[in-house]
């Protein structure tokens, strides 16, 4: 019988997944705050219902027991601990390498539990720390889940579900929509000469992200949606995210696209993949339904055209990912993706060719007069 394998592993019940037990029949997941108290972190138990600094301190302490080498900067740094957690390259790289470990992501993985608990602390600054690792977690999860030798990934799933549940509550059954403007209606930025038609009835309303159903487990047909929502959440805070997390994202997007690069691209590719052993381009290819691709495109747009122009490494990696994605869009003959990704590529090219004039500079004149 062929069907036993694909669905056997994701639903293996583990501690973090217990709380929202019945999946679709429960009307709504309990709010995040209540989940955090029931979860089973050992180090954080001393805090009951305390203010943020204590929560942060507790989170830090429990993290120190998980990391291989306790970070030195924590005790000495004058900055607030949450800020240190978010910005310290030492801690981030340790967490990243733990996450990237081949056996990470199981339900009893301490780091996954820590991330899960930390997100549920309902402290915004701590939640940012979890969001910072969303690209890495989504990337590892989606890449590993389709591998032949399946490994337990309930730890990753628990974190992603926590983010999803948070967003489900926040959106309160409303989709995210965009009312596409129509220039025949006047707007705050322009006047319209044509007679006013009846208000907004004939405007196009586009659904960017449909309303969310609560899920207690990752059902495989909803997997892309759940990860997509986590990425939407990441994008909503992307301007405070570290460049490394964006680099992680671009790396995985490149893998997900899974298309061959041209020969001359291979060389530059070789020098920057020392951590993943099996980074064969074709291995990481996954299906990219719009619910996953949409948020990815927004993040990619930010990496390529938002942020600072000086972030060369990010721009370069994002450009590579973009090219892979364009190839993939052509492979899938997906018109929407071809349009969106193609325009990003052309914009970057224009950006490079453009010799920008600074119009805020004054004319240098020979005669200076009053």
């Amino acid at each position, binding site marked *: 019988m062929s*069907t036993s394998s694909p669905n056997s592993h994701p639903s293996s019940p583990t501690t973090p997944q217990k709380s929202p037990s019945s999946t679709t029949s429960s009307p709504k997941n309990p709010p995040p705050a209540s989940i955090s108290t029931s979860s089973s972190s050992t180090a954080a138990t001393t805090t009951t219902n305390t203010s943020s600094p204590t929560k942060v301190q507790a989170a830090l302490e429990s993290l120190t027991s998980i990391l291989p080498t306790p970070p030195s900067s924590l005790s000495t740094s004058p900055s607030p601990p949450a800020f240190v957690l978010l910005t310290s390259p030492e801690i981030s790289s340790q967490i990243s390498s733990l996450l990237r470990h081949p056996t990470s992501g199981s339900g009893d993985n301490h780091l996954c539990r820590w991330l899960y608990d930390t997100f549920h602390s309902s402290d915004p600054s701590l939640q940012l720390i979890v969001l910072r690792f969303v690209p890495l977690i989504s990337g590892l999860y989606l890449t590993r889940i389709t591998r032949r030798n399946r490994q337990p990934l309930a730890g990753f799933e628990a974190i992603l579900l926590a983010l999803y549940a948070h967003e489900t509550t926040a959106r309160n059954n409303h989709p995210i929509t965009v009312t596409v403007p129509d220039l025949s209606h006047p707007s705050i930025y322009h006047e319209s000469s044509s007679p006013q038609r009846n208000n907004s009835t004939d405007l196009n309303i586009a659904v960017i992200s449909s309303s969310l159903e609560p899920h207690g487990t990752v059902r495989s047909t909803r997997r892309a949606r759940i990860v997509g929502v986590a990425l939407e959440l990441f994008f909503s805070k992307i301007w405070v995210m570290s460049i490394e997390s964006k680099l992680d994202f671009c790396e995985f997007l490149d893998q997900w696209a899974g298309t061959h690069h041209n020969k001359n691209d291979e060389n530059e590719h070789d020098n920057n993949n020392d951590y993943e052993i099996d980074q064969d381009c074709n291995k990481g290819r996954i299906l990219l339904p719009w619910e996953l691709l949409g948020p990815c495109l927004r993040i990619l747009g930010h990496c390529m055209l938002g942020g600072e122009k000086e972030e060369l490494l990010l721009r370069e990696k994002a450009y590579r990912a973009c090219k892979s994605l364009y190839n993939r869009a052509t492979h899938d003959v997906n018109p929407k993706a071809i349009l969106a990704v193609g325009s990003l590529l052309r914009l970057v090219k224009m950006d490079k060719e453009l010799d920008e004039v600074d119009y805020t500079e004054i004319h240098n004149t020979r005669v200076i007069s009053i």
Partner: protein
Amino acid sequence: MPGSQSPVSSDHEEETGEREFRANGNSMKTAELEAKLDEGNIQEAESSLREGLSLNFEEARALLGRLEYQRGNVEGALRVFEGIDLQAAIQRFQPSVGDKPSKKGRPRPESVNNVPQHAAGLVLEAIYLKAKSLQKLGRLTEAAGECKSVLDTVEKIFQHGIPDLQVDGRLQETVSQAVELLPELWKQAGSHDEAIAAYRRALLSQWNLDNECCARIQKKFAVFLLYSGVEAAAPSLSVQIDGSYIPRNNLEEAILLLMILIRKCALGKTKWDPSVMEHLTFALSLCSQTSVLARQLEEVMPGTLNRIDRWVALALCHSGARENKEALNLLRKSLHANERPDDLMALLLAAKICSEDPFLAAEGVGYARRAITCASDDEEHLKGVALRMLGHCLGRQTKVSSSDYERSSLQGEALKSLEEALSFESNNPDLLLELAIQYAENRNVNAALRYAKQFIDATGGSVLKGWRLLALILSSQKRYPEAQVVIDAALDETAKWEQGPLLRMKAKLKIFQSLPMDAIETYRYLLALVQAQRKSFGPVKASPQADDDKVNEFEVWLGLANLYSSLSHWKDVEVCLEKAQSLRQFSAETLHTEGIMYEGRGLVKEALASYTNAVLLDPNYVPCKVLLGALLSKMGSQALPVARNLLSDALRLEPTSRNAWYYLGMVHRDDGRNSDAAECFQAASMLEESDPIESFTSVL
């Protein structure tokens, strides 16, 4: 005023000759003053300038500051500017202008205040240059503060906005530059909210900006909104005019600004900027609003875009909005021999569109073959895609092929192309599914089973179609319990609103296993689901879009009607059909079931009418053709030719219809063509061995 030339007019003589100061009819070389400044003697330089050109303190400082700034010595410029109490200078001329009430119809108090306007211009330029100097020194927040004070002052002087006419050119230039600089400064300083506020202030207040400058700010703001990731709060209530469109989020605001920019260009107010269209393409594709994008592309004046580029972009837009006919027409133009016949992407898109329509499939084969030729020299990696499209088109072409021979050769070719495509793209799950369906339709069930399993493996079971296909293939092998297991596994992997098709299939499997009560139980659950769905979403109209992720109520009633009809519970069938018909009035499927019901009750005439209506409604609806043929075949020898025609036609549309073969066999037998009849019966019995509970293509 003598000597007050605008900087623009002296452009042509710059770079040559020595710099000089000019004021009040006198001029003075700068070299001597530069030396003094270099020694740090600002005051000496200032006083000799005041004497030489008879200037006051502020004027002399402003000139010296500008000199230092032009020399690239921004720190020096800053020192010079810091010597002036700029705020006090501003205060001096402010009230005299500010409290002037508007005269007559034209509220333009400035016309009588030329001198203060000029003085203000000089001071504002000094503050502006101070801001620029600070920017160059990396003191961004301070720079923004200075820049902002320029704008605050201007707003106080011109309380009704800057008029189009009668404003000092140099003052206007400073104002425009300050308006443009402020948001950039906040952006560089990392103060996103201030940057957004500054952009809106630039665009919503009257600064009398020229078109190009305004367009630059609009574009920069749109880019910031699209890519920065900072969610802007909605514009303040004060700027909202009744009845006008107010953007509520970043995407809306960015799209609005970009559309305005394109409109401006179409009106000839600004130069064409290709990046604006690209940004809009990105934004509208993200919203899946490619049909709106198509309209924008059509608005662009001829001559600005390459026409072939425009055709292809429009084709992509239409295809993205599922307007395939328009898309294909545009692609035909762009792929014409005189235009760009080797555009690989266009060829692939054309082939894909054609592959969805049997009557276009032959045309699609042509595009796919051209794509294969193009791909082999240029982009090898797309050859797999081209082969895949070829396979699709050939497979689709079989639906309209006129002879058995042609059909089987097309089918063979289709499979060959798909298999070849797989050698290029072994990692493409979609291809696995397509192969599985193609083999299943060919009744090569073992191969189909293999590919269906591979597909589920490769996708981690994330695609519903895969599960359904696997269950159908197993059902065609009469392995009902295993199919049942697959369906149960799939139910575990789907959210409840998507379970409709799975549950209906489950009920069908129960019937085939002679467990009608279980089947009815399943339907009871489905109906409960429909109820729950109604509660949480409100009544769902039976529109084709709503089918995607909701339980389709029509299908549920129809399925239940079919279930009762298989049990010959005609009363219940009638009730269910009524429900179904109230959701979708005209449907070949309901007429089909209705016909069976009449036939079951012995109402042959009514049954005939139902079947005929169904065929009239959808000439390609095979089941009714078969039943109509079967019914006619029982009506005596006169009707036999008609029956035979109908059944042959049904077989042309669906060569694997077991019933059609069977009844055709009956017709042949009744007509006395025994060998023909035997062949038909043979075909029917062979097909019966591999008959799925639903047609394989129903998963698509």
